């Protein structure tokens, strides 16, 4: 049975008889005719009579309240719920065509519906009827008539009446299904009509909640958690209605926020729905009252769930407090909230689906606290390290992140972290010690490395010497632990470590440390250059004074440079090509005797030069190193004062430079330098030795009477004997001393193994042959004493015979004057006896 047939039946049976009795004006009659035509009920007297009324053609149809009442107002039919429902349903064609019931009829209808909702929603009522009735309600609500507000009020009242959940739910479902509550019309007192969309604003409160916001809010909070899982609820119905005004109300009524949050949590629990729209409700000023409220209360698991559903567009400064409360929540009760479902399923996303820029700086101490190698719990450490590692280390290259601090974006700096966050200056060593064994693979250490790197030169002010020392050890450990980690971590952190170390290890002198840092280059190629540069800055730094250790180091590392074919100790190339003159100047200015050091150094260098020359033909690099050494020697020797070289060195150099196979033969610059030094020196040697003698002579004669045999006097005497003829000074007194203490002198010579005895006898032998010392000359005394000493020394030795033979030959030769010959004969006799 379709609507029209149904309608016809009810009309014919119940309404037409009444119409026949009623009297209408022409205009009203015309409206009745239209209605009858609409429902196709023309086989009756009313219709027929009206058709014959010729006046009707002229008039406008008037659907007056009288007609309306005749058509719609039939309370007696509502006695039977089935009949009543059917009657209402039959109105649809009329209402669709704008014939709305008058207020009285509407009220009756709503009364009827109110009492029969249960029946209405039961399966007894067909779906068609239900659809028709809701269609009618929809048209009424949206009609520009008084019915609109009345019906809408009725619906909202029933919906908010959670004492009758079933009916409320039934209406909610259908209101949504038929989109009934879209807009409503109010007929004002001056009969003007205004249409309002369904929005929670002052009008809404005025018309539906007697202008009482609190009443509405309370109702809203009560109905929020009501509903079945997976089905639509009042929240879904009202979702589109949430407005800035509602937000404003919350903003001004903080207490309501608390109830709202609680309602949302309950709704979350009972219907497993997120309520995103209400939670993220905002005022026209872009203020989110509910999210703001969460930031000001102590959190429980529900807040975590809600906060995880926050809108992505909420301004950061309204979220800051929420994050802090979240961290607090994770900290309380010994961090046991970590184990809750709320954290595992929701809270974790607050961190994982986020960026450092949004999170508060307080995350850093939180992280270090939670993941501390001693205090942290193992399963938590893994999770937090992954979370914060991603947040604070990823995509930051070598910089520290920008985070939120005191409600503003804040670029985290190393100095700030050290001073204000870690605040470990008192217990720095023990604090850092704990992290060492974790190695660089731990995100904590990566973050620390970044922190120290970021602080740069500040480190020198932030930590005292002892702490800096420990920091260096820590960084070295981190660098070495990079061997056991991924390539990515190594490449990211090692350069930072080396840079920090080169800042910390700035003061000269600690070469063990310098080498340790330099040695880090073996860990990965990415720091090879910086390590080498670092070493160079210590080994060749023209801004710092040179010292012997550094120069020694150049020569030592020449070995590495050579053996590795220039791959190791690469700064040697610079040292040898640029530092020759500087080294020479250093030695020139040096007070002490450095000739021994230089002798060793030159020996060392030339030994490598020799090796290079040896391999030159087959290995080009060896040739290059040889050239480098030659360059250095040219610079060095060219600028060096000749006094700094001793005889051995010069003889060695001279000999080496003349050597054919591995020499400086083609060194047009070096060779003249060596020659010049050589000549200069060997002219000087005589002079210098004489000077020494004179000095000694003058200073020692005073005490000579009481002197005994000692190495110093032996030396003076020997010098005198060897040089008297050139200098013209004959030290008779010291000769007397030696003649007197001949036994002591002999035992001294016995102990000596440097060949002084031979030199002595040789020098004395020469005095015997000196005509200037012969008897009768002014130096006779010196000659006599020498002769006597010679006899004492030679007599009884195996040399005595050969000396005697020599002297005899001299006498026989006839070269010597008689007085000398006499003395010589006397000596021969003395040696024999």
């Amino acid at each position, binding site marked *: 049975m379709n609507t029209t047939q149904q309608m016809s039946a009810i009309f014919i049976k119940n309404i037409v008889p009444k119409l026949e009795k009623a009297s209408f004006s022409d205009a009203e009659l015309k409206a009745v005719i239209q209605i009858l035509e609409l429902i196709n009920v023309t086989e009756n007297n009313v219709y027929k009579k009206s058709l014959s009324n010729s006046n009707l053609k002229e008039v406008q149809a008037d659907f007056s309240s009288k007609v309306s009442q005749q058509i719609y107002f039939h309370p007696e039919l509502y006695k039977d719920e089935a009949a009543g429902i059917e009657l209402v349903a039959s109105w649809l064609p009329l209402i669709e065509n704008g014939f709305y019931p008058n207020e009285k009829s509407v009220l009756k209808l709503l009364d009827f519906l109110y009492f029969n909702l249960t029946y209405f929603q039961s399966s007894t009522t067909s779906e068609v009827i239900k659809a028709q009735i809701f269609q009618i309600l929809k048209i009424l609500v949206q009609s520009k008539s008084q019915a609109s507000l009345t019906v809408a009020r009725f619906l909202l009242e029933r919906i908010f009446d959670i004492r009758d959940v079933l009916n409320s739910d039934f209406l909610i479902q259908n209101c949504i299904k038929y989109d009934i509550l879209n807009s409503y019309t109010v007929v004002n007192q001056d009969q003007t009509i205004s249409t309002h969309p369904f929005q929670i604003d002052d009008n809404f409160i005025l018309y539906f909640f007697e202008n009482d916001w609190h009443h509405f809010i309370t109702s809203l909070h009560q109905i929020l958690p009501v509903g079945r899982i997976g089905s639509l609820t009042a929240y879904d119905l009202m979702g589109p209605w949430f407005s800035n005004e509602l937000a404003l109300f919350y903003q001004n009524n903080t207490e309501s926020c608390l109830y709202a949050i609680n309602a949302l949590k309950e709704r979350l629990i009972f219907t497993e729905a997120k309520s995103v729209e209400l939670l993220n409700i905002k005022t026209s000023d872009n203020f989110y009252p509910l999210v703001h409220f969460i930031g000001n209360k102590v959190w429980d698991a529900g807040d975590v769930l809600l906060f995880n559903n926050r809108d992505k567009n909420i301004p950061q400064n309204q979220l800051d407090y929420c994050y802090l409360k979240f961290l607090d929540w994770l900290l309380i009760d010994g961090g046991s909230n970590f184990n809750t479902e709320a954290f595992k399923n929701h809270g974790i996303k607050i961190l994982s689906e986020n960026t450092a820029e949004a999170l508060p700086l307080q995350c850093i101490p939180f992280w270090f606290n939670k993941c501390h190698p001693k205090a942290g719990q193992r399963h938590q450490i893994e999770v937090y390290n992954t979370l914060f590692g991603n947040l604070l280390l990823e995509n930051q290259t070598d910089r520290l992140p920008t985070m939120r601090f005191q409600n503003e974006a804040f670029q985290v700096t190393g100095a700030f972290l050290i001073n204000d966050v870690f605040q470990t200056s008192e217990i720095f060593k023990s604090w850092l010690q704990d992290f060492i064994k974790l190695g660089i693979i731990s995100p904590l250490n990566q973050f620390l490395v970044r922190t120290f790197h970021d602080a740069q030169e500040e480190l020198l002010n932030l930590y005292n010497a002892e702490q800096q020392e420990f920091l260096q050890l820590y960084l070295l450990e981190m660098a*070495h632990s990079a061997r056991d980690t991924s390539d990515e971590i190594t490449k990211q952190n090692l350069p930072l470590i080396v840079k920090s170390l080169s800042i910390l290890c700035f003061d000269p002198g600690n070469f063990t440390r310098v*080498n*340790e840092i*330099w*040695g*880090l*280059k*073996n*860990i990965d190629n990415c720091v090879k250059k910086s390590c080498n540069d670092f070493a160079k800055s210590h080994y060749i730094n023209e801004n710092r004074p040179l010292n012997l250790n550094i120069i020694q180091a150049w020569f*030592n590392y020449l*070995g*590495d440079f*050579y*053996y*590795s*074919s220039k*791959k*190791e100790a690469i700064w040697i190339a610079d040292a040898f090509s640029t530092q020759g003159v500087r080294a020479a100047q250093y030695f020139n200015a040096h007070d002490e005797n450095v000739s021994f050091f230089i002798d060793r150094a030159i020996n060392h260098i030339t030994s490598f030069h020799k*090796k290079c020359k040896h391999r030159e033909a087959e290995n080009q690099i060896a040739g290059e190193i040889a050239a480098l050494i030659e360059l250095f020697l040219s610079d060095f020797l060219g600028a060096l004062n000749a006094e700094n070289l001793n005889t051995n060195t010069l003889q060695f150099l001279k000999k080496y430079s003349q050597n054919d196979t591995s020499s400086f033969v083609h060194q047009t610059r070096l060779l003249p330098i060596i020659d010049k030094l050589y000549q200069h020196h060997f002219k000087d040697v005589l002079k210098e030795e004489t000077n020494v003698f004179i000095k000694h002579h003058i200073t020692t004669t005073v005490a000579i009477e009481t002197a005994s045999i000692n190495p110093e006097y032996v030396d003076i005497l020997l010098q005198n004997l060897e040089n008297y003829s050139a200098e013209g000074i004959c030290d008779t007194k010291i000769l007397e001393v030696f003649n007197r203490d001949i036994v002591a002198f002999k035992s001294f010579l016995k102990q000596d193994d440097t060949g002084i005895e031979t030199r002595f006898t040789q020098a004395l032998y020469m005095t015997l042959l000196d005509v200037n010392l012969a008897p009768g000359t002014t130096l006779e005394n010196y000659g006599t004493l020498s002769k006597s000493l010679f006899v004492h020394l030679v007599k009884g030795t195996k040399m005595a015979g050969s000396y005697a033979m020599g002297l005899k030959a001299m006498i026989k030769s006839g070269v010597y004057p008689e007085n000398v010959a006499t003395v010589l004969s006397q000596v021969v006799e003395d040696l024999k006896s």
Partner: protein
Amino acid sequence: MTQEITAKIQDQLNLSALILKKNHKHADLTTWSGFDLNDDMQVKQAKRLLKLFGIKSGLHLRNSLQRYESGQMVSQSFEKLASELRNDTTTTFDAKYNAEQNPRSKNIYKLVWKYRFILKTQKLIGYEMAVYIMQMRLGHVLGFIETDEMLLRLEEANDTVKTSFSSWGEFHRNVCLGDEYILGTTEQDNSTFPGSGTLWECYQRLNIQQADWFKEWKK
């Protein structure tokens, strides 16, 4: 680039065979390093040994090599004591020996006394060069040193050893003495150093397994 090991290079590497075998029982002496670079356990062992020597990088390695090469590690202290003892008579030595309390020092005194003249020129350079070569091989495991450089250094180490000694026997005796001088005479405790044999064990085994290597003293 790893170079092929020729007979000549093998002969040079063999100077460290004894000391390497002692420290790494499963050493494959026919390879550059003696360690299987694909076996994590062996690499770990190499790392451990390097750590014992205080070698953390190529730089440390080369510094250490220089110390061994120059005799700073063993020969200098040996010679210092030896030159002192060369002036002693049996009586004065006994007095010194008895006055020494520490058993290790006592052993060192005894050893140096015995060899104070015999090793006057060689000192313990044989032992030092053996360790020198072994350290290079260890360093090669971690890439601290390339074979090119090893080759160069090996040649010179070989020269030093071959001119100081006249036979494998004499050289190996020097290695054993050096080892004893450094570690003491006591037999090594196998529970403390599992997997490592005594030097004497290694010596015997080596001469059985690689008999041909140690016959001819090629200069």
